[in-house]
């Protein structure tokens, strides 16, 4: 399902003296089954933009295309519910949305809102609890007896239970320990590949964006200022800096090595493995020449 924003502007408290514009003329195309990262400094409008992807916010100007649905500014949009089943959002600190008596019921809440039968919802919950890396025994516990990290995983399972075609992630690993962060990000990437999900990751971690995303969009003060593949965007560190963003550590590391050996490697590497291989092949080439 493609998602397309056309000239989208958004203002909070429209028409009151407290009106505050958060988005200006944003154009963004997210093709089906791609992994899109949206990066920006705090207050750049990332969290506002993601609420447009399932109609939680309606644009003040412009159009939002979600699959074959179009949400146009100024027109009443009816029946947004089907969109919300297809576009799942994992909000920042999703553990705050847990409310049921048991983990099982909480995971079932979403699907049952969309008319999925109880048995089917139960089945999904059982599958998902192991997918997010928790033991089956958790299902019968109260979500409030779990640790913060476990609650996060339960909440994520609650969104995945909708079986969306598009999954939007807002800083899904904020506040987790490094291992938990990696596990969750890897899980989403695996889902993205295996189930052909369209994944939209809203983050300020350049490392995650470099590692997983097919396309990046840089937000700055409510505008989408830069789009492209990670390699295209990370080739120009100066521009990024002007948007108060830094290059990923791995690329800074590559630049240091290049300065040290006094020559450029043949491409920009986005992961440790890639960089290691690149350095190795560069060294080999050099010794071959001698």
């Amino acid at each position, binding site marked *: 399902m493609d998602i397309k924003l056309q000239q989208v502007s958004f203002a909070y408290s429209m028409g*009151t003296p407290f009106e505050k514009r958060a988005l200006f003329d944003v154009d963004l195309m997210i093709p089906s089954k791609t992994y899109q990262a949206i990066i920006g400094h705090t207050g750049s409008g990332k969290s506002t933009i993601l609420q447009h992807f399932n109609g939680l916010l309606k644009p003040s100007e412009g159009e939002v295309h979600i699959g074959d649905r179009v949400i146009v500014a100024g027109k009443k949009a009816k029946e947004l519910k089907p969109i919300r089943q297809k576009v799942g959002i994992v909000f920042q600190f999703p553990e705050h949305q847990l409310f049921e008596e048991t983990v099982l019921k909480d995971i079932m809440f979403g699907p049952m809102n969309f008319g999925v039968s109880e048995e089917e919802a139960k089945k999904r919950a059982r599958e998902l609890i192991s997918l997010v890396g928790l033991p089956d025994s958790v299902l019968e516990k109260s979500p409030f007896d779990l640790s913060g990290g476990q609650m996060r995983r339960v909440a994520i399972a609650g969104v995945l239970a*909708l079986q969306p075609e598009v999954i939007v992630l807002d800083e899904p690993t904020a506040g987790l320990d490094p291992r938990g962060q990696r596990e969750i990000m890897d899980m989403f990437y695996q889902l993205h590949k295996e189930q052909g999900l369209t994944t939209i990751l809203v983050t300020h971690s350049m490392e995650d964006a470099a590692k997983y995303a097919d396309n990046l969009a840089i937000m700055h003060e409510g505008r989408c200022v830069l789009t492209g593949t990670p390699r295209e965007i990370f080739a120009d560190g100066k521009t990024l800096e002007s948007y108060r963003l830094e290059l990923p550590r791995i690329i800074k590391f590559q630049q240091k090595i290049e300065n040290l050996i006094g020559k450029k490697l043949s491409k920009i590497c986005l992961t440790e493995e890639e960089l290691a291989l690149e350095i190795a092949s560069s060294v080999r080439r050099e010794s071959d020449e001698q």
Partner: protein
Amino acid sequence: MMEKMIFGRYIPGDSFVHRLDPRSKLIFVFAFIIVVFIANNTITYGLLLAFTLFIILMSRIRLYFLINGLKPVLILLVFTFLIHIIFNREGNIVFEWGFFKVYEQGIRQGIYISIRFVVLVFVTSILTLTTSPISITDGIEVLLNPLKKIKLPVHELALMMSIALRFIPTLMDETDKIMKAQMARGSDLSAGPLKDRIKAVVPLLVPLFVSAFKRAEDLATAMEVRGYRGGEGRTRYRKLKWDWRDSTSLVVLVALSALLIYLRT
């Protein structure tokens, strides 16, 4: 949807009214509420209305905010006006339509009551619009200080009030966030039969309560860590200052009530 709420909001500024001491503003408003009831004829009500307009001008608050503050009580206003029109049977008949008779006094009293209502709402709105919640609680604490003699925990009450006021916006934001998260999971607060809608409140309230209690606990810890031990011997960071503006405004109010008493019938 929460962001549309104007009532009870503070709008910073530096008008005459903004710069008044919260104590004088509080005394003024409470006294004014009583003074409003002195008026009983066209001249006195006109005077009240003119005086309120004068205060609005002095506060440089845009009329938009005041009109908005009126919206929640609009039904009450219309209702009392209609009650007077329908049930007051004094004076000449102005208008007749079958059973339905409208008397002169009915219209007159209806308008008087409406003016009273509008004036009260405007003046109290101006108090909250021009005074930060913190100043209001400071003012209340100082004004209630004499009640300490009868063992009323004035400081604790003021603290509770300022904490409650402080967390209203936070809780509003929180409500908005959780509502959106549950809507993203297909819960629908605005559609369907009443029974379903009431059921849809549970996924909103439970997380809200959980986070409110957590927040309260964190706050208590943070206060204790910083050595909070009640109001005993506590000094103030914000000193209240009473100057000529405050005295003037109270003198003006006394003059107004004297004039109203003189002019009433």
